[in-house]
């Protein structure tokens, strides 16, 4: 009853000036986001300093995009996504190198393997809330790291997994030289395009609306009838699947899986890329991957202390540009 007295008067009219109406450009960017993204990625190898860097942007872009599904769109800050990236890479490498599985089968197995790991880690960690979730995913992913280190007969342990170079890819009678950087880029580009389409598919779907609702207001979403835990778990697994795809791409690209892919610093790097580019924007993760890798490349050319620059830039983004490069661009320029 005191409540009525303490509340300040509230203007009745809606502040329509603050309301944001989508312009035609923004609408076009959203409707054509998959094709526009693919077009942009097609140009990448010709504007970047090296083809290997371009492939890395593809790999880490897909990785950050998968992560963004969970972080940007579902609102869960996982610090353990290196586990799924690594699982995809390891399963692919082991399938090719130790079981002689053809590359396409190995990619499929890698994605499934990463998805299963995501199901296990997700089932354990979804039960926890908020900051706790971040720490639990981090610790469980470190468990995976140490298991991979110990299981060296499968993973190569600290030495890394090797001996599965894919030199050529045969599709429908065509033989593509996979050692040629340009051919490799465009083959992996197909995977990236698939991932782009898949994520766009999810975001357009009713499920995409559900995870956004959970990010916006978990309590409300639950009251509306969403099984929040189950929805989060599905999102976690979908995110894990895409990150695992990035892992298989990385394995095919480098023909080597370093143990470091599972380390928590890889998870941290994914978070940094996603945030730099812009969490909860569709193309942001690719922009973030590009920005991060370019910074690393350029700064590490002229100082071995490049991490102090990258770290500082990241801090500035957290403080002043939480929407990231692409997110800010969309908000300021396009709107």
């Amino acid at each position: 009853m005191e409540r009525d007295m303490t509340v300040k008067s509230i203007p009745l009219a809606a502040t329509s000036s603050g309301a944001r109406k989508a312009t035609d450009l923004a609408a076009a960017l959203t409707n054509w986001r998959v094709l526009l993204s693919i077009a942009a990625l097609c140009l990448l190898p010709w504007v970047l300093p090296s083809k290997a860097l371009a492939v890395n942007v593809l790999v880490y872009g897909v990785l950050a995009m998968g992560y963004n599904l969970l972080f940007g769109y579902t609102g869960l800050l996982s610090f353990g996504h290196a586990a799924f990236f690594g699982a995809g890479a390891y399963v692919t490498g082991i399938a090719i190198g130790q079981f002689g599985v053809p590359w396409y089968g190995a990619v499929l197995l890698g994605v499934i393997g990463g998805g299963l790991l995501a199901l296990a880690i997700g089932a354990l960690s979804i039960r926890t809330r908020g900051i706790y979730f971040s720490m639990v995913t981090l610790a469980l992913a470190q468990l995976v790291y140490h298991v991979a280190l110990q299981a060296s007969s499968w993973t190569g342990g600290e030495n890394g997994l090797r001996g599965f170079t894919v030199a050529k890819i045969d599709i429908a009678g065509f033989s593509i030289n996979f050692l040629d950087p340009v051919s490799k880029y465009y083959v992996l580009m197909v995977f990236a395009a698939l991932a782009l389409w898949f994520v766009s598919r999810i975001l357009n779907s009713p499920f995409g609306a559900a995870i956004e609702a959970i990010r916006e207001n978990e309590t409300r979403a639950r009251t509306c009838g969403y099984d929040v835990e189950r929805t989060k778990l599905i999102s976690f697994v979908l995110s894990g699947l895409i990150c695992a795809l990035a892992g298989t791409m990385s394995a095919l690209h480098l023909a080597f899986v370093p143990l470091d892919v599972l380390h928590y610093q890889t998870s941290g790097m994914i978070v940094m890329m996603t945030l730099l580019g812009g969490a909860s924007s569709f193309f942001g993760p690719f922009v973030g991957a590009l920005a991060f890798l370019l910074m690393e490349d350029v700064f590490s050319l002229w100082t071995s202390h490049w991490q102090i620059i990258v770290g500082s830039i990241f801090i500035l983004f957290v403080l002043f540009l939480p929407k990231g490069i692409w997110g800010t661009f969309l908000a300021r320029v396009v709107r």
Partner: protein
Amino acid sequence: MNDAIRNLGQRKISRRAALAGLGAGASFLAMPWVARAADDTIRIGFPTPLTGPYAAEAKDQVKSAELAIKLVNDKGGIGGRKVELLVRDGKLNGGEAATRTLELIEKDKVHAVVGALSSAVQLAVNEVTRARGVIYISISQSDTINEKKDSSKYTFHEAMNPHMTTAAVARHAFKKGNKVAHLVADYAYGHEMLRGFKRAQAAIGAETVGELLHPIGAPDYSTLMPRLRAMKPDILCISNFGRDQANSIKQAVDFGMKQQMKIVVPVLLHNQRLAVGPEVFEGVVGGANYYWELESKLPSAKTFNDAFRAANGGAIPTDYGAYGFTGVSSLLLAMQAAGGTDTEKVVAALEGLKYDVAKGAQHYRKCDHQSVQSVLVLESKKKADMKGANDFFNIVENEAPSEDVLRSCKELGFPA
């Protein structure tokens, strides 16, 4: 570019220098975009971990690799062609190093690759080079690279391997009837060292009283010490690397182990001795590929040291630094013999090469391309016995190079 790398070589970069670098950054920013003009320069790629815990070793490697290049260029290069070293930061991460190596091959069109410090990074680089038929000279200590599975026609291993190091150390440190306890890092490199020691023990007649594995990167060894002490060994062999070596030796000393037993390591690391101090390392015995004091007995070491001192303000080359010199020099000598950069010819020249650039006679064995070389056994000095800031060790043995101390070609999986 080389100026940039030389900047890296300096131990410490002041903040002001870093800011000045920022100012000059514009030109560097443009660097990667500049397509390399097709000229006849001989380009050698050099991935090394300038970032991370082994940056000091990496910088030493860069310095001595650049010295090797400079000495050749001063004499007019190879067949009139200048040689250039392209240093890239592998960040002690296999994925990074593989990417940098891909760039070196695909974009910079290097004629050969030398480098790597950790076993994993070396294997990652090797995976890239051997698939593309590019010569790679590894300077990372490892047994794995010798084995058939990871070998290739184009892969050479200039560094020592744990098998030869442990054999030399054991021959010096173990006596018949000694009881030996092992503390081993639980990963490939640790297991390789353990295997080497146990083989040598069997030949000498020393007995193993126990072996404990520890997780790699462990900061605390206190829970292992009671068991090690209970084994009552004469000798404690600690088979691990880097920070692990520093931590485990330090804690063994804290637990009073040195009063009861002798501490032996496969490789006595210059930078870890620097990091932990003379008191802790005093009396510890271990192997090394190079120690600057060799100059008192060996002319080639003297020449190398003098050139290094001249180029680096009087500093001495360290163990890992020397690998940069011997590794790059062997490649340059082979290129000279082959009269250019034709891969097949250079491979043939490397296989036939006999060289002595810093540590006595060396050559690559035919089957696994392992560099057959001398192995030093060092003992860490008491603080009171040190004659200078860099006077860390006594050379207690200099094992002559011999193929006999290597695992046989057959054992490695090569046809006899």
